[in-house]
């Protein structure tokens, strides 16, 4: 019985602390309704009365340097699967870490061309246009959570390491293409294109 009474005391105090307009009347009504918790309600009301109004006191300060440092410390405490963590920005792309043979095998397993897969690897495709079914299938092969794979592929387009350019200008990664554009320009056979199109939602 004691346990039950303690729990309801907690609920009563919680209800009091979330009252929008606390005044003598509100307090009196609680004291009348819950005389058994009088002391705790009174003490809570005084704690709430004497607590500083932090909202009123706060101003936007200009300590950019300090808040940036605090952010980096905070970020370093977050778990790697938190999308805001420093780690999540640096998750290695498993497609980039494959050797040629592994990459070729994966392309075969997925029944796509290597060109198709390499453009996905290089983040050259708009992730929002890739069918969820394909992302899921790729995530399964790479043994990654779907969200993590999506984050990896959302990063800006990359120029694959080892890629050679004959142009005189400095090479740069272009705009991301849509999934449809990818299908049309990746040397896929007709049946492969049909199979991939069928994955679209």
């Amino acid at each position, binding site marked *: 019985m004691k346990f039950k009474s303690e*729990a309801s005391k907690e*609920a009563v105090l919680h209800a009091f602390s979330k009252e*929008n307009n606390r005044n003598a009347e509100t307090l009196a009504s609680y004291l*009348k309704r819950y005389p058994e918790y009088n002391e705790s309600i*009174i003490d809570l009301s005084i704690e709430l009365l004497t607590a*500083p109004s932090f909202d009123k*006191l706060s101003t*936007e300060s200009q300590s950019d340097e300090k808040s940036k440092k*605090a952010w980096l410390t905070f970020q370093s405490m977050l778990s790697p699967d*938190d999308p805001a963590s420093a780690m999540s920005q640096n998750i290695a792309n498993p497609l980039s870490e494959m050797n040629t043979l592994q990459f070729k095998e994966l392309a075969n397993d997925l029944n796509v061309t290597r060109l198709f897969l390499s453009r996905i690897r290089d983040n050259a495709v708009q992730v929002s246009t890739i069918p969820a079914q394909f992302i899921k299938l790729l995530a399964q092969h790479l043994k990654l959570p779907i969200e993590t794979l999506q984050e990896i592929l959302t990063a800006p387009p990359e120029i694959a390491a080892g890629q050679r350019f004959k142009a005189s200008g400095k090479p740069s990664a272009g705009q991301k293409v849509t999934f449809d554009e990818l299908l049309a320009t990746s040397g896929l056979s007709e049946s492969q294109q049909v199979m991939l199109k069928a994955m679209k939602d």
Partner: protein
Amino acid sequence: MIIPLKKCTKKGDPYQRRTEIEDILSELDTLAYDQLVARLTCPNTPVPFEILIYYLRHSEIRFSQQHLQPVFTTFYNRVESALYRALAPAHFAHTASICDEIMDKLFEMIAHERNSQSDNMYYWEVNFNHALSNFRTDVLKIIGPARKTDPLINYHPLMREDEEGTVLHPEVEAAAERFFNPNPSLLDDESFRLCLMEAINTLPEDEKRVVGLFLQGMQIESLNPEVMTIAKALACTDRTVRNRLSRAHELLRTQLQKEGYDEI
């Protein structure tokens, strides 16, 4: 969808946030991430702290670094400035280190909350002021200046045994009541209010309760038996209430004069 508080009563009813907070969250819930972040960080119409802590402590919202960092920075700057301004003069010499300590511990707690998706900080979304105030007190107990220097800490009321029978001069009683009903403009002065509230927190328990109830607008006594009075709430006579109020007045007046409020 707004993430509900996980904490439930023993009956299984979920705990609720204040209505105004729920209303703001519902409104924000319809915004796209970019608009949402712009609203949360807008300096002209700052959102309540309860809202900022909601978006900071729930990793389920899936804010990326790009979205979370500005919200974090706004929260950090606002809490830091509020903590600086809320520290009593007694702590001035240590203000920077106390603030840093409180902030470090607070962000450790938020990071833990995000990583474990636990609901230990649910109350911060219900009443941020109270939660931060308690948290600050806990940190001050550990690292604050030694409380033995506090002029009120060793105070022993001299008239406690016979407080029922002691009749104070009416002028003393009237002065006490005037003190606790000050000119509203004085209570609007945030730095005076902070000093007064801080001093009230150092009063002995009985005096603190009487003052706390009086300041909330409760009457000392009433002829109407239905009306809740301080004497009824504390199960004592109105004479005792007046005596405690007068003692509190003396203590607070001394304390506030030391802080430079000579006209009190």
